[in-house]
């Protein structure tokens, strides 16, 4: 493809591509997101190609197979959608493909058995499904729709329209002004106003002329979070365009995409997209003939969670050890190689083209006045519909988990939600009916759990409300827990993760996380005294106050909030030596209820310790001295006769 030399050439390319598109040509979109890929989506896609070849369909009706990014509904994978028939098939296996081609593509009929069904209702199109109905897709609009490796597809969906608009119609200052007015806040977790940060970098660059750098933070290390991954894999051009806009606004000529090494597909898609953008003249020298020069390069993170911290990213890019340094000076004042540097999360960058294209007032109208726009969450844990959701800021926690998430699977009851990844807090589900104002604002863990709802209002999901509960919104991880999850165990898991990932530079974080973990391990073994809970809380506060970077300062959140809201559960471990959720292995015993057991012997065959005995068709029993409490018997029991207490 030739380089585009002007805005007109870009638009005429777009128009010609759109004109060449046949709206009646069937398109099969196979989700190749992380969840579906693990379930064998690549085999489904290959099966489609062979099946269509075998059918020898004419050029006019020959369907187009698009391998797209994540469709979002991960619990139902592999997902495929058919256009223009607007059909949405779930749990597709490679064996189903032949039948789909026969019925849906050739005959144009609906294959009922692959439709999504819930509570007796069958849904033909994705838009009707409750999981999708309550969502508002802006950033993810093209993810799952376009082929991320095909720049023409992206152009037809409107990519680089905002860049062309900004380069020709807007002054750099106007771009910053638009982002400021839009109220966009950093999506990485801190929620710092993006426009304010940009302005500060520009001011520093004016005071001290020289190069400015911009960085996209794609070091998404939170367990259970894949928001940035979906964007980078599914719509890489959106990130590139957002960064181009930022570079234009701040006069940067070089940018870096810092992507974690564990995301090979994201790196591959971004590499392809960068090359496409360069060959089209959308990156490099004299972009679209406007004289603006900007190029991007990809740097891979070597697997350190702490390198998601902005000063650690800079250290890593400079070739130093990935350890944070103290702020101030902020990177916007003195960052990469001592120059003003803007680091934004991938999702933040992907917001920018939409703001420029649709205007700041439109964006500011989405969500809440202080938390504008939409936010992507990865909804995981004990919910029926796990997956990637994009909702306007300020959606109520109840709506997010019950309407979109579809409630708890099985007979469990919602207990708590863990938001914001390992650095976030654990908040009880009952809090969903409490207005954030009713929670005393202030530092985490300092208040006794005596909040009284002043008025009945729902807890909304936005930066400020989440902070008032003592948790954080963070990057957008949302782990739902039911009554079979133990908060002590979860807090212990997250602390263990953070302890592994601490860089070890400052003492409160390096020693403190180890020390907190010692306390929690003791609790989970039923040891300790009630005073130890207060000691743990006080140690947590010392970490919040004393640590150098965000990792240490937010690491105690899970412990502090769980003590604040679930002190009873801690006391049950320490005083009664019981784990109410039946998770902490040292405090539980498994037994088989003889009146329920039908003697099928499935448990006896599964038990790795061979400690379940019993005659055929007679109640079995567990020899508890040999039991390692793995729970395998409970999982296989067809009549739920295995009881944990």
């Amino acid at each position: 493809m030739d380089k585009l030399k002007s805005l007109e050439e870009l638009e005429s390319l777009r128009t010609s591509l759109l004109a060449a598109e046949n709206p009646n040509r069937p398109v099969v979109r196979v989700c190749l997101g992380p969840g579906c890929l693990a379930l064998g989506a690549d085999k489904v896609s290959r099966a489609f190609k062979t099946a269509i070849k075998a059918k020898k369909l004419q050029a006019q009706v020959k369907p187009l197979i698009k391998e797209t990014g994540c469709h979002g509904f991960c619990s139902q994978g592999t997902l495929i959608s058919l256009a223009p028939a607007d059909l949405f098939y779930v749990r597709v296996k490679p064996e189903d493909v032949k039948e789909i081609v026969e019925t849906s593509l050739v005959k144009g009929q609906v294959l009922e058995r692959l439709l999504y069904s819930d509570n007796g209702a069958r849904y033909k199109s994705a838009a009707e499904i409750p999981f999708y109905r309550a969502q508002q897709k802006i950033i993810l609009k093209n993810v799952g729709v376009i082929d991320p490796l095909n720049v023409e597809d992206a152009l037809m969906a409107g990519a680089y329209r905002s860049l062309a608009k900004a380069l020709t119609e807007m002054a750099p200052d106007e771009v910053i002004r638009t982002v400021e007015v839009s109220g966009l806040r950093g999506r990485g977790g801190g929620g710092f106003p993006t426009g304010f940060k940009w302005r500060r970098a520009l001011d520093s660059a004016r005071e001290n002329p020289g190069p400015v750098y911009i960085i996209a933070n794609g070091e998404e290390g939170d367990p259970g979070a894949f928001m940035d991954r979906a964007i980078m894999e599914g719509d890489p051009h959106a990130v590139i365009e957002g960064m181009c806009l930022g570079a234009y606004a701040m006069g940067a000529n070089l940018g870096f995409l810092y992507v974690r090494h564990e995301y090979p597909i994201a790196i591959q898609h971004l590499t392809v997209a960068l090359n496409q953008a360069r060959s089209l003249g959308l990156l490099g020298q004299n972009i679209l003939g406007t004289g603006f020069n900007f190029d991007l390069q990809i740097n891979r993170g070597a697997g350190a969670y702490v390198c998601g911290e902005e000063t650690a990213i800079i250290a890593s890019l400079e070739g130093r050890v990935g350890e944070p340094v103290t702020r101030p000076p902020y990177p916007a004042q003195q960052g990469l190689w001592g120059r003003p540097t803007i680091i934004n999360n991938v999702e933040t960058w992907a917001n920018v083209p939409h703001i420029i294209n649709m205007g700041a007032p439109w964006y500011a109208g989405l969500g809440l006045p202080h938390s504008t726009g939409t936010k992507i969450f990865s909804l995981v844990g004990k919910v029926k519909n796990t997956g990637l959701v994009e909702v306007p800021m300020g959606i109520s926690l109840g709506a997010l988990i019950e309407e979109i998430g579809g409630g708890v699977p099985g007979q469990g009851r919602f207990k708590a939600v863990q938001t914001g990844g390992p650095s976030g807090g654990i908040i009880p589900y009952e809090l969903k009916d409490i207005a954030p104002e009713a929670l005393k604002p202030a530092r985490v863990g300092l208040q006794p759990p005596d909040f009284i709802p002043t008025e009945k209002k729902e807890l909304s999901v936005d930066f400020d409300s989440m902070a008032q509960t003592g948790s954080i919104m963070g990057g957008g991880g949302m782990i739902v827990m039911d009554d079979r999850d133990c908060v002590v165990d979860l807090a212990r898991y997250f602390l263990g993760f953070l302890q592994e990932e601490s860089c070890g530079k400052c003492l409160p974080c390096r020693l403190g996380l180890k020390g907190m973990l010692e306390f929690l391990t003791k609790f989970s073994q039923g040891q300790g005294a009630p005073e130890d809970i207060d000691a743990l809380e006080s140690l947590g506060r010392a970490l919040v106050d004393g640590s150098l970077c965000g990792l240490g300062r937010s690491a105690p959140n899970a412990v502090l909030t769980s003590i604040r809201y679930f002190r009873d559960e801690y006391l049950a471990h320490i005083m009664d030596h019981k784990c109410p959720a039946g998770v902490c292995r040292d405090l539980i015993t498994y037994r088989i209820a003889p009146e329920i057991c039908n003697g099928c012997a499935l448990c006896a065959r599964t038990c790795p310790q061979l400690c379940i005995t019993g005659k055929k068709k007679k109640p079995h029993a567990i020899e508890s001295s040999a039991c390692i409490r793995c729970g395998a018997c409970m999982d296989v029991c067809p009549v739920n006769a295995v009881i944990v207490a």
Partner: protein
Amino acid sequence: MSSSTNPKDGLINFSIDGRMVQARAGWTILETARHYRIHIPTLCFHPAVKPWGACRLCVVETQYGKRGSVIPSCLNPPIEELEVFTDSERVRNVRRWVLEMLLAECPASREIKKLAAEYGVASTRFAITDPEEECLRCGLCVAVCNEVVGVQALTFGSRGVKKQLETPYRVPNNACVGCGCCVSVCPTGALQARLDTVRGDLARRTGRGFAH
């Protein structure tokens, strides 16, 4: 927080523990406190090297208008009208916990025991891994070797709880000139016992680097 100087004399007026003090431009809160002989404990601070902010014992509570926070005094310059509290409850909480954890981390260090006793910490609740350990990984030796001596005979290896003082690539090296700066800045004297592991077997030193 950027430093703002008083345009009249280039000095910054602020208060430490209720006492009005003046800082020269470029001074940190810690340097100002030391100038006025106000005690702030430190382990990883040394005037010869750039502040690193690892030990966090020098934290102070600050109040600026309505905004209050706990910050390390060795890294932060004061601003006009800042109120600094060097011994508030939040500050003591951080110090007490750091010292209690240090008692478990470097149980052999007399300096840390003495400092802990000043804060009423006599014993530790945490597990002691090595009763002979004195090194708290504050990084002063690494910094002085790099910044002052101008060689890099010492470095940190591994990450987080496994962090260790090592020589680059874990091999004894010839970069060490045996100046002893690292030993002299070490707050606990831990390096005294380690010098030979850094320099390697002296009998094998031939004047050529045998590290690579």
